[in-house]
């Protein structure tokens, strides 16, 4: 079943294109929207949640257009990124009020279950204004789950959480995904997505750069050409030696040392020590030049 469908969706603000012709389908299980900050993940989530109209294209959630359709929240739970909740309420009051807004038959019972699931029972009677950022995130998730929605949208849900809270939240979301819920979350942190989602949608510069099984995309990321900076006792000799190896596709002699483009990350890093030893060259520095997530994303976009 396809719970969420984006067909040729673009969103622009004046001359700035935030999301560019994105088409994707999302079904049950956990799906991560991965991309650097400002890539358009939040814009896409907001369009899915009906809080932003697409400039072009259709966003279909549970069979209906999400824009101007508050009725869809019977089946959708939303955890916004912004850390603004009704701070004057206690955690329990906030979740129970949300349950009442959903007109649940037993709002107090539903609130209790959701609060227990997020392990917030001990602090549920404290005012939200006294909560840490991680606790606020968890109470927001409890409120989003209180009506047992089929689809849960979370915008950067792990922001502000300590490692233990993060692991617990991941377990909760994994379990909910395994139960057949559609869990969609955005993150700019590769490890979060790696740990949690089977399926990812990689967003770069407002475009869908890669989509599908996480492991396949992770392999693509690992096997991409890597650039290293090397300094040695004899850069020119080392350059000549490196060019004889199939794992190396290009070497450039710069004022800071050698810039080496390796076609195969694993082989190159295994071989480089042996090469310098064989040629009697002392390796002074070896550092990856393009390991930022942005460069990984940029590669995926070009691939």
């Amino acid at each position, binding site marked *: 079943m396809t719970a969420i469908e984006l067909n040729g969706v673009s*969103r622009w*603000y004046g001359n*700035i294109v*935030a*999301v560019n012709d994105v088409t994707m389908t999302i079904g049950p299980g956990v799906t991560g929207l991965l991309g650097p*900050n*400002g*890539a*358009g*993940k*939040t*814009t896409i989530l*907001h*369009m899915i*949640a009906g*809080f*932003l*109209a697409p400039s072009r294209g259709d966003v279909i959630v549970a069979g209906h257009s999400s824009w*101007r359709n*508050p*009725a*869809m*929240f*019977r089946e*959708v*739970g*939303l955890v*916004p990124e*912004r850390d*603004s*909740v*009704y701070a*004057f*309420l206690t955690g329990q009051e906030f979740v129970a*009020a*949300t349950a*009442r*807004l*959903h*007109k649940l038959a037993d709002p107090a019972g539903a609130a209790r279950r959701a609060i227990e699931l997020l392990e917030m029972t001990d602090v549920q009677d404290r005012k939200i204004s006294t909560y840490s950022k991680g606790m606020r995130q968890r109470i*927001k998730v409890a*409120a*989003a789950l209180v009506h047992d929605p089929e689809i849960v949208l979370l915008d950067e849900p792990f922001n502000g959480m300590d490692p233990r809270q993060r692991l617990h939240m991941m377990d909760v979301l994994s379990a909910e995904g395994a139960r057949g819920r559609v869990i969609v979350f955005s993150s700019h942190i590769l490890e979060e997505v790696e740990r949690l989602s089977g399926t990812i949608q990689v967003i770069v*510069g*407002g475009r869908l750069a890669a989509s599908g099984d996480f492991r396949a995309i992770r392999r693509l990321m690992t096997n991409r050409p890597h650039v290293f900076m090397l300094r040695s006792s004899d850069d020119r000799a080392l350059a000549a030696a490196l060019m004889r190896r199939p794992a190396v596709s290009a070497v450039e002699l710069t004022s800071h040392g050698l810039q080496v483009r390796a076609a195969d990350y694993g082989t190159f890093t295994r071989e480089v020590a042996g090469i310098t030893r064989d040629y009697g060259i002392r390796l002074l520095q070896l550092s990856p030049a393009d390991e930022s997530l942005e460069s990984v994303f940029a590669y995926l976009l070009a691939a």
Partner: protein
Amino acid sequence: MDGLLNGVVMRLTLRATMSRKRALLFALPAIILIGLSALLTKTAHSPVWPPELLRTVGLLVVALTSLLVGGSVLGGEIEDGSIVHLLATPVSRRSVVLSKYVVAVLLTWVFAAVPEYLAAAIAKGAGNRLAIGLLVGALAGAAIYNALFVLLTAAFSPGRALAGGLLYVLLWEGLLATLVPGVGLLSVEHYSLAIANSIAHNGDLHAGLNTGTGIGMGVAVTVVALVLAVIRLSEFSVKGDIA
């Protein structure tokens, strides 16, 4: 299909509005008005001051309290982003706007219309036609002003909404409506006066409009403002991320 009003939204709105420690701020103009009335009752020798004070200061209190309350019931939550939690539920936008509007009107009645009556009652006695007329005019004015100010906060940023509301009350109503003939037709204060004067029959209230026009315009402005506020909230957008 949910009803016109939502009790949960109303309770949340009431707590949010009052928890911002605004109760004192809301009460201050009313206290000043009642204090002035009590003081003048004891000290003034001229009998013309009650309609003069209650028309100018009294209705200004209604307008400014409406601006503070009506501007915060929706604007406060839009400003801090907590409105998203409310809008991420199946409650209709119409129900959200109307629930918040009703809370704003009730609060304005408590903090401005009732004090207007009390100030008049101190000056002229509880059953006096002027007091009752001004109470009804203030109740109606609060209902119309709040619809306008809820619309302003739904349509503009909180700062602009407040500036627009102040300009309307102080410049448009306070200055232009008294100087330029015809401007009163677009003045909530004039609608209130027309309604008040239909009961008070007091020439000092200077109602520039007849009762039918006052009521008709007041109802029309209220309905149009609320319909536009619902449309505006239905299109409520949050800012996305732009690289």
